[in-house]
């Protein structure tokens, strides 16, 4: 057993693994290299180890299936939730878009049918603005429509409206009027933006619609002068609507609560300062 420098053959061979992998201390590598320069037996032993390792590594990187995959990757990815339905995400995206378009068309038809039913039914004397408000509120009440912005915080909803609405708005009703807010959103009526706030009074769904005052034309002529002074009410078989002009807004409150409670919600609109 040779002893070159600080390492004998046994020590050198026991460190073959880290030497082969270029790991460990530089000092050990230096000691091994010094030993190998002088020890032919260990040099031969190291060469043999290298050959075995190369062959083993080659063999470990093969399987009995040759180059054929051992795994159905499409299935792995699909069932892992990575690709929802198709191997190509781009195809999946196109499918999703088509599906959403179809659902959107179906929803539009539902809105149209709702209007048609309302117009052909007992609500034929109700102004179109109120009819649309009823239709939107019906979607809210049945859970078919979720607002753009969902929050149970009065302040957050107020901030959302200030940020999102293009016309002047005031602070929506709050808890002290019995109104528990759930969120807010926007839609368009005859090209005009309408803001809405959804919530509940005594667990009954209530929707508040806010338009600029110049949209009063959507209300029949005979109603307009009264609206400037006090709340007006419209009863339908399903819902009660309270509406009025408040500051620079036309405000409608739709729901299934008593007239007094709706009026309280309506009159509380704009009575709070905006939170910065």
């Amino acid at each position, binding site marked *: 057993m040779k002893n070159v420098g600080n390492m004998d053959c046994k020590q050198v061979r026991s460190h073959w693994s880290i030497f082969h992998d270029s*790991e460990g201390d530089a000092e050990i590598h230096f000691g091994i290299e010094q030993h190998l320069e002088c020890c032919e037996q260990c040099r031969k032993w190291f060469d043999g180890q290298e050959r075995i390792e190369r062959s083993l590594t080659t063999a470990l990187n093969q399987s009995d299936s040759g180059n054929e995959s051992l795994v159905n990757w499409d*299935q792995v990815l699909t069932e892992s939730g*990575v690709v929802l339905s198709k191997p190509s995400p781009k195809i999946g995206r196109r499918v999703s878009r088509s599906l959403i378009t179809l659902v959107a068309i179906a929803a539009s038809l539902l809105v149209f049918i709702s209007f048609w039913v309302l117009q052909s039914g007992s609500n034929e004397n109700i102004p179109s603005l109120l009819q649309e408000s009823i239709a939107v509120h019906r979607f809210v009440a049945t859970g078919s429509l979720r607002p753009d912005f969902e929050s149970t915080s009065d302040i957050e909803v107020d901030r959302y409206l200030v940020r999102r609405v293009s016309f002047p708005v005031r602070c929506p009703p709050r808890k002290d009027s019995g109104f528990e807010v759930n969120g807010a959103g926007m839609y*368009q009526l005859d090209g005009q933006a309408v803001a809405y706030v959804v919530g509940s009074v005594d667990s009954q769904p209530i929707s508040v619609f806010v338009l600029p005052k110049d949209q009063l034309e959507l209300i029949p002529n005979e109603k307009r002068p009264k609206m400037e002074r006090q709340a007006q009410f419209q009863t339908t078989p399903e819902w009660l609507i309270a509406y009025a002009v408040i500051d620079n807004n036309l405000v409608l409150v739709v729901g299934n609560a008593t007239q007094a409670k709706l009026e309280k919600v309506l009159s509380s609109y704009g009575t709070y300062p905006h939170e910065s």
Partner: protein
Amino acid sequence: MRAKSDRESNPSLIHLSQTFFLTDIDHEKAERFVAHLQPIQRQLELFCFRALNRREDVQDTLQAAIANAYRDFDLYAEGTNFRAWIYRYVTFESLNRNRANQKLAVPFDQRELNELASHHIDHFHWESLMDSPRELLDHFDECVAHQLVMLDETSRRVLLLRAIGEFKYREIAEILDIPIGTVMGLLARARVELRQGLASFIQQNGFAKRGDTA
């Protein structure tokens, strides 16, 4: 007057459009994940093939590992070592699969390694293995499954992470959450044990007969 968009003209579209955007984000995440995964799919297959006691578990193991990794993909920091990151899930899942047959990892002892260095192996068969490994390793698949199962779970993982994953010791230590010194020791011992097994295999199957020129 503002332009009328689908999103605003039909209130019932509002929630649908939100769903659409979420779906888009999901697809972007899936595309990124698959882009990282594709170059190493074969490597992961082979790792599982060698690490698992039962070949039929490869697909299920990878599926479970990929599902967990994808769930946590938001935690993966782009630009860091994805290969090492996902191997953590694959090694963990393969360990779970083998748990029923798992042997406890034997603590590494440098003295033990010195003993194993070579002299425990029949010298003649050891020389045969040293001189002509390729011919003998043509029969590798006949005995490798047995030899790998004979290694303890952690040693086997260390060996495969090095041989198939080509990881540095530091990366293997991070993947398996063990000290780097243990990686060194386990790998050296696994290599010796594998060679011992192969030498025994040569002896038992008569691939190198005494008197033959090796």
